């Protein structure tokens, strides 16, 4: 197996030392070899991918595209025209979108070749990819453990070197946490940075599409392609898109790194703690100024997030009524029965969240839960604004643990939510954050998370790439 990064592959296609078709065939071969054990893909599209790769090879102009011939995987909650898009749910098991998501259009226009749709927690609700109607995904580093979630299929596909790039989506850590648990790089962009047209909605004040890669520069290049205003998504911003790939070539300089001491004090596995401390030492040795900061409300972030996300999910998932698209269950009764039977196809985590969202939005509970959570959310955001007066990035572990065993948290929803204790704050505050590999604990990958100012992904890429150059972690590949 030749392991190439996305940009190395693109350069080889441009130089004619390989072809898009050869790259596509290698990805499909690797996919077919690993998928029986990983279950990373729900649908694959080898024929369509080969046709597209052949087209790229036959055109001089296409071979110069920024991702010419790079095989990519797309999380299955992102719409692909003519290709089944399930969101990991029984209710969309046979749903074939009539349109492409904007991020899919942009990747394909840049020369990327989609080889398949990746497995995920149902409607992206979960932190282990076990809440999928299509079976759990397994971690390439240890197949008895979860890859994290909800974008676990995309993370596993990149970690297993099936594809060098994949798209996931983030609501509370669904790119960063699986990136950390699978030993790769994952980014949550600023809220509004990337179009959500064609992303199946979960919690609309939090959702963002984010890329996975094995190297920071690949993730940076991918963001450069998918970022920017889209007239079809009113929440996408008109803010200028920076030269992200260029940012990865800059020095660390006198980067100011803040450590929220109250947050990284307890509840972290010893091996994760050690890898994180070493990562901070590396940054300090390279010239970064490391200071303690306070994020006093972040300890309430997971509870705040739970309330906000459930309220928004219950509203967004009201659309699955079995009328206009998707699956309709038994049709012989009354309309109300048809709704209930159809929605009975939801898995347990989706049912829990829809019911609790209904609860926290009910008269009598709204103020105590939803309104209160909105106020705490504002305080969490203010904490970051204050911190960014003193520092350029905030560093924490991405996850308090390494990959946990399959089944361990499946029946304990609160324990599952706590997997996201370090990631949800960035979603609540609408700011960007990246997870970068920072070592291993007992043979399992650990990630360090850098969180930055709104719209300042460039600083995250600069810091993450400088760290990556100083450490061997991103080059580690799981066996098998």
């Amino acid at each position, binding site marked *: 197996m030749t392991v190439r990064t996305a940009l190395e592959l693109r350069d080889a296609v441009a130089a004619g030392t390989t072809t898009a078709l050869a790259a596509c065939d290698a990805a499909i071969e690797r996919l077919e070899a690993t998928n029986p054990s990983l279950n990373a893909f729900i649908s694959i599209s080898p024929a369509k991918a080969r046709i597209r790769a052949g087209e790229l090879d036959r055109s001089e102009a296409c071979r110069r595209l920024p991702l010419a011939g790079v095989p990519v995987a797309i999380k299955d909650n992102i719409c692909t025209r003519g290709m089944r898009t399930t969101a990991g749910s029984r209710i969309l098991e046979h749903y074939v979108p009539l349109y492409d998501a904007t991020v899919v259009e942009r990747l394909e226009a840049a020369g990327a070749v989609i080889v398949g749709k990746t497995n995920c927690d149902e409607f992206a609700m979960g932190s282990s990819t076990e809440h999928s109607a299509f079976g759990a995904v397994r971690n390439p580093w240890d197949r008895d453990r979860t890859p994290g979630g909800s974008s676990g299929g995309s993370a596993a596909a990149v970690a297993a070197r099936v594809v060098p790039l994949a798209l996931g989506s983030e609501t509370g850590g669904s790119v960063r946490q699986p990136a950390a648990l699978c030993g790769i790089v994952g980014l949550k962009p600023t809220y509004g940075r990337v179009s959500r047209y064609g992303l199946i909605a979960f919690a609309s004040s939090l959702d963002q599409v984010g890329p996975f890669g094995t190297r920071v520069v690949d993730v940076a290049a991918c963001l450069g392609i998918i970022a920017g205003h889209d007239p079809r998504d009113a*929440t996408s911003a008109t803010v200028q898109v920076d030269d992200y790939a260029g940012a990865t070539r800059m020095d660390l300089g006198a980067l100011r790194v803040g450590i929220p001491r109250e947050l990284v004090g307890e509840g972290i596995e010893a091996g994760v703690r050690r890898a994180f401390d070493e990562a901070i030492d590396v940054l300090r040795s390279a010239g970064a100024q490391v200071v303690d900061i306070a994020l006093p409300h972040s300890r309430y972030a997971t*509870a705040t997030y739970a309330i906000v996300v459930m309220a928004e999910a219950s509203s967004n998932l009201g659309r699955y009524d079995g*009328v206009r698209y998707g699956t309709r269950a038994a049709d012989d009764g009354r309309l109300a029965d048809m709704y209930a039977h159809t929605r009975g196809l939801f898995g347990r985590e989706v049912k*829990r969240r829809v019911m*609790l969202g209904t609860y926290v939005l009910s008269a009598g509970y709204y103020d105590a839960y939803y309104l209160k*959570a909105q106020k705490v959310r*504002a305080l969490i955001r*203010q904490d970051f604004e204050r911190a960014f007066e003193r520092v350029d990035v905030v560093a924490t572990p991405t996850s308090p643990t390494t990959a946990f065993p399959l089944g361990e948290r499946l029946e304990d929803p609160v324990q599952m939510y706590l997997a996201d204790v370090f990631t949800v704050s960035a979603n609540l505050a609408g700011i960007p954050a990246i997870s970068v590999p920072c070592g291993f604990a007992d043979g399992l990958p650990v990630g360090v998370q850098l969180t930055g100012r709104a719209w300042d992904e460039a600083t995250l890429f600069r810091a993450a790439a400088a760290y990556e150059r100083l450490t061997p972690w991103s080059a580690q590949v799981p066996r098998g």
Partner: protein
Amino acid sequence: VSTLTRDDVLHLARLARLELADDEIDLFARQLAGILEFARQIEAVDTASAAQDEPAMPPPGTLREDLVLPSLERDAVLAAAPAADPRTGLFKVPRVLNG
């Protein structure tokens, strides 16, 4: 404080139009109560200083002009529906009224 009855669960399921399996009712009564107890941590936060008049997430985008633009083709949309009548251009649902 942190208990939900089977009736509470069934009431929420009815509001959300969700059919539950029988074994889910007791399971959810326990799990939902546990999640709500976890969520109630935020009661301890003093939110007097929180900005109340601005939305948690300011809308970052700009609104486009209100122009009529091409949309999805009606026949294709109807063909993708669980039940539809392409001749009249309507989605079909179970009867709502008698007679």
